[in-house]
């Protein structure tokens, strides 16, 4: 059984917690978000015959009240950066988070999956073709998801888990 630390990143209220909730049964209450800025959940899955435990660090949204703590990113094996398709601002936040991840020691080895969330409201999306292109050019997987309609949620996590199995990667570079 291999364990991996996964971080859920993204702007405030893009639906990180809803995605995690859709995916796992939580033990801890959501109030930890507002107090600690992070909540840890667990999901066990099998990828390519390899049993794996994902420890999902759902990190409070990056906004004026909560800055993502670099310590929370320490030792992560992969990350899902969530974008709310209906809010342009969340794309900008996602890109800056992406750069932050890649700037970590050994960051270039950390696989990233972009979640284009709120696919149930696709008619209200404001993401342009150029923006999607920018995401794809990073070489990361880009997956449309909706926690509400349970769309692409499993795919998000299994894609990332698949990449982890491939690279057998873990960020060994510690911060601080």
């Amino acid at each position: 059984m291999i364990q991996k630390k996964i971080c859920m990143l993204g702007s405030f209220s893009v639906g990180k917690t809803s995605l995690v909730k859709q995916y796992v049964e939580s033990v801890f209450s959501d109030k930890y978000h507002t107090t600690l800025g992070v909540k840890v959940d667990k999901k066990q899955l099998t990828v390519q015959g390899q049993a794996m435990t994902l420890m999902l660090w759902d990190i409070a949204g990056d906004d004026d009240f909560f800055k993502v703590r670099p310590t929370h990113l320490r030792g992560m094996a992969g990350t899902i950066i969530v974008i709310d398709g209906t809010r342009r601002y969340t794309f900008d936040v996602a890109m800056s988070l992406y750069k932050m991840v890649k700037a970590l020691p050994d960051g270039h080895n950390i696989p990233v999956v972009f979640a284009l969330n709120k696919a149930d409201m696709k008619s209200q999306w404001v993401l342009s073709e150029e923006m999607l292109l920018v995401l794809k050019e990073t070489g990361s997987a880009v997956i449309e998801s909706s926690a509400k309609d349970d769309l692409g949620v499993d795919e998000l996590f299994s894609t990332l888990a698949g990449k982890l199995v491939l690279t057998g990667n873990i960020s060994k570079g510690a911060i601080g």
Partner: protein
Amino acid sequence: MYSENNTSAPLAPEPQAHDMQRLRDLLLGKDYESLLELRRQINTPELHSEQIARVVSEALQLRASQDETLSEVLSPTIENALSRSIESDPQRLANALYPVMGPAIRQSIQEALAQTFDTFNQLLEQSLSPKFLGWRFDAWRTGRSYSEVVLLNTLEYQVEQVFLIHSDTGLLLRHAEAPQAISKDPDMVSGMLTAIQDFIADSFSIQGDASLKRLRLGELSVLIERGPRAVLAAVVRGNPPGDLVELLTETQESIHQQMAHTLVNYEGDSEPFVRIHHLLEDCLVSQRQQRVKTKPWFAGLLLLTLLSLVAYWGYQHHRAGQDELALGQSEQQAAAQSLQDELEQKKKLQQLAAQAEREQEQVFRERIKQINAEPGVVVVNTDKTETGYRIEGLLDPLARHPDTFVERMPLLTRVGVRDVDATFDYSFQPYVSAEPAMVMKRAHLVLQPAKNTVLNLRDSVFVVSGVAEQGWRNKLENYWRNMPGVTTLDVSRLKVAEPTPVREHTAAINRLVDTINRAKYLFGAGRTDVDETSPRLNQQLRHIKELLRLAQVNEQAVRIILTGNTDQSGSARINEQVSADRAVNVRDFLIGRGVPAAIISLGKKRGSEVNERSVTYWVRVY
């Protein structure tokens, strides 16, 4: 020597060897012999073994006293030898161990029994103490088993769980827990514990290597021992002693020593840490409370209570005895006294009955007062019946019936016993009350003033103020003269408004038309019947009625066309019939709820044109 040299000179190689021999003899003498003997002994295994056999025990003893290597070297061999021996003939080893195992097992059983007796004894002793009851209560309250609560309370401290957590990732490497411990998912706890440490370190910008050492919540503590690669966290119930921290530090050191390589290259595989599980288990220590022999204050209290009870009973008995004595002394006097007592008792009872009757009478009068205070009701006569009262009077049809507001009152059936409510049997004649409240109520009912029209009654003057339409004004003129007790109408502050502006209603009507047209009634597959309790349908009905009311005010006509639809499954002919049935059923529902049949018509049979199991509305207002 010389001559020998001479004689041997011509015999070239032979004498040379001989010379060497001689030279050796001369130089080394007997020592050479022994040297050769020594070499022979070493080269001949039998002789060499013989030599070593003489010293081997002493050598082993000597080495064992110097360092530990001997046991390290020997243990694999001994283990192998033992397993070989057991494989070949288990009985032999069993026989050899028997003298040791027998007593050991007996002692272990004895100890276990003694411990059980001890616990049982302790429980028995405690079973009468308030502490025991408290624990029972705790067990019931927290849902734990009683034995668990007892254990928790008699423990000085116990390490319930030990986590070994990877520093960088917060991933759980290994977890050990005591048998009675309640633990949530240790993987997640491990993650959150790391997050908490990060949180503290970040939030209070701690300098250097300082880190969170201890968390405490009530009787629980979390001791955290940080190593360079891993964190050891112990969850302790009770008061952890200082040497527990030492134990954790030592464990942490051993783990780092034994798993150094695995820790550095950790990539999420925690399997190798099974090896050090016993180290974590060694940390699951606990210490029972030293039982202090307390004074038996509880038993003392019990004894005291018993004593006072006995004393009280004795006193009572003594008094009773005295009374009896007095009675015996003057029996006749007592008999007379008793007769007198009886009479007095009777008198008292009569007094009580009278008193109760008076009380009930008073309550009844209160009730009558309450009825008379109500506008539109007048009590003319009352009678007492077996089960309560009969009340005759006048009742304005607009007034509240006393049954709805008069409080119940208990009926006096026997002396001092009131166990049922008195019945009130009303007999009212209808009348029109001239009481202001009733006059106003009637006026509101008949005139139905608009919201901005205010009605008032001042003595005999009917004051109407605000704004009213001319039509209403005419109605008022006709009505007020028939109002009982009213002699004058004061309309000095009433403005006559233009007839209601049609536009205002038109907006409301348009809104309603829109709402009704958008609503549709949906059917289940193949169903044509209408659910009369459907909230949406009933709301639609309310909208239609409101539309009718407003249209009437506006003097407009309303027409509603109902069209039934079906989905595309089924044949066209059946669908046509189903769509028609649906429209008819909705129409019947509306008519049944008071919508005039004349304004509803049915649209053409549309069948599955719009592919929807519904009835849609089309409303027009002329």
